[in-house]
């Protein structure tokens, strides 16, 4: 099964091994005919209308604005409905540095996203702390507090790179099984169990 998006031929993707492993995982679990086609329908719908949460803390966010404007025009892909409320969004594009004071806020936003939810770590800062890695107040990547689905490197990533990242995410969505089984929510749950929000001490 070749998982791709409409605008890009399968061979042009850089990391097909990964998506193939996901496909195999999907196949191995076996599919019921009726549920299988329902899954396809649902995934077709979801992968083509991923709504981002408007969430940007710094420089990378400006490139995200550029992504929405006429030149890069993410409306072509069905992502333009940037929501200000996490309740209405599908994924969170963490664009910018995440610092200690912001960490609980990011986590709360993530918790407020409706399931199924995804995270893209966009830019060096969100991946690893970027240029500010050694700072006393910067997280070494948003991966410390959230389960990340796609990493998008750059400082800032060009809007093209961001498009590629979101397309990767929509590919990932396509190989999910909605009714039970392989939808990788288990990994998320485990991550969140290992990174609990500690009780407030006061």
């Amino acid at each position, binding site marked *: 099964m070749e998982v791709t998006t409409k605008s890009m031929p399968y061979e042009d993707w850089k990391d097909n091994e990964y998506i193939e492993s996901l496909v195999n995982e999907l196949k191995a679990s076996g599919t019921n005919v009726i549920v299988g086609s329902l899954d396809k329908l649902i995934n077709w719908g979801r992968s083509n209308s991923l709504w981002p949460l*408007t*969430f*940007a*803390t*710094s*420089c990378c*966010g*400006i*490139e995200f*604005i*550029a992504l929405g*404007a*006429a*030149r890069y025009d993410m409306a072509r892909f069905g992502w333009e409905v940037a929501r*200000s409320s996490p309740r209405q969004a599908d994924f969170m594009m963490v664009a*910018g*540095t995440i*610092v*200690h*004071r*912001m*960490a*609980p*806020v990011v*986590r*709360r*936003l993530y918790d407020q996203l409706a399931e199924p939810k995804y995270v893209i770590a966009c830019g060096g800062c969100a991946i690893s702390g970027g*240029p*500010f890695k*050694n*700072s*006393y*107040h*910067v*997280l070494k990547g948003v991966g*410390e*507090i959230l389960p990340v689905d796609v990493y998008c490197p750059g*400082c*800032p990533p*060009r809007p093209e790179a961001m498009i590629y990242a979101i397309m990767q995410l929509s590919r990932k969505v396509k190989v999910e099984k909605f009714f039970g089984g392989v939808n990788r929510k288990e990994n998320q749950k485990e991550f969140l169990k290992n*990174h*609990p*929000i*500690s*009780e*407030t*001490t*006061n």
Partner: protein
Amino acid sequence: MANIQETIAKQFPEVEFAQGETLELNVPDAKWHDVAAALKNDFGFDNLRALIGMDWGEELGIVCYLVNSKTYEMIRVKVVADGRENPFLHSVTDLFTVAGIYEREVFDFFGIKFIGNPDMRHLFLRNDWVGYPFRKDYDTNPTLNPVRLDHEETEDTTVEYVEGADGKIHKEERVIFAPEDFVVNIGPQHPATHGVLRLRTAVDGEEIKKIDLYLGYIHRGIEKLCEGLTYPQTIHFTDRLDYLGALMNSHCLCMCIEKALQVEVPRRAQVIRCIMDELMRLNSHLLAMGTFCMDLGATTMLFYALRERETILDIFEKTTGARMTFNYNVIGGVRQELADDFVSDVKKLLEIMPKAIKEYNQVFTGNVIAKNRMEGVGVLTPEAAVAYNVTGPAGRSAGWNYDVRRAQPYGIYPELEFDVVTCTEGDSMARFKARITEMEQSCRIIAQLIDNIPEGEICAKVPKVIKLPEGHWFQEVETGKGAFGCYIESTGTTSPWRMKFNSPCFCLAGVVDHLCRGQKIADLITIGGTLDYIVPDIDR
């Protein structure tokens, strides 16, 4: 200047003087408030430009830069605190309003408490933060301050340190919000705060009674990071402060280092820097205008503004290779030669800009909704602009005729013809229009230079290993937001002892409360948008 020295020396014999870049005063803490009052009332130094916390190893203290808002003279004052255990200094909040948040910053980073500052809380760091990170003996052990996922407590009261008649200092509680106040929390994740700013807003129906500002949601500790890096390594951070003024910020830091090294920048590099600065200003104002209009519901304007911005970004990209974080200015000049079609591209831009500006005005400025939303909203007086240290388009549209390019001229600006855009209304409309007029002026500056880029070197010869002599330097430039300053203190090594970025946006955020009181809550968006602060520049 001699006059100041004589009079102050007579009044306060304890004050020591030195002459560096400016007149320098070394004031003991006991006399600091009185000296500040004398400087303000007798000599017109009514604008506190910078208040910089310092750790000299043995002692803690502050360095202040005061500006005379009329003659643009500048002086430097140094005040040293007593001991490291529990240092106190006297506050000057009653003289310079902006000192209020500056002193809170110093308290947060250095642990110096200010007697008489009505609000001694953390500003950037969580209120359960352990230690003072900018002190040289700060313990960086990550177990002391792990990544906490629980929310910090929000306090409705604060403390003030008061000096009794017997000289003893005691704590007094101050109320920020009374229990009967209706407080709405806005931010840190809110589309209209232009970044991660948190405002706790007390409202009475629709009307704003008070705003309490929370910063630090993007505090990256850049100044502290700089202390561990060599000078050339620090420059790229300036691109990431106010990323819409990237080239101007790095220009500032480079000039500060060049001043210390006494390097002469080649003429060609100077001209290129100047053109780039003005292109950057266009870029900054365009985005400010676009996002502001979007906040008011005019999304079309965002697309129009970004259309021109993309043209400018193309010009940048061809020469520097980047769309945003350029790394273009280096010590001694610029990094790369101009792209081959730089001149023709810029000329094309100069052609389309007047038409575009006309279009913006047609679409938005004259619009009756825009007028009703902006006129008479958030009025800033020139006195308040000086007291709150509001520089840039916001300060000028309030009637304070201060532009660093004219007040403390740098680069080749003295040779250029341009108007300092000033008006007197001080409301949101004035701030909005001031940016559009400044875009015209930037085009005018670029037009003067684009045909006259001289041949020659693009970078001066600088030593491989850059070591600054012992001393301190302060340099300012005019960015799209206001006066951006760099302060370097060096002990003669390859990395700075202290590097401070004095950001205009910090003061812009500090004035929000003042402007919003008595306005409707919807006007908060208009006021914030026309002030045009960039949060990573506030938090650094």
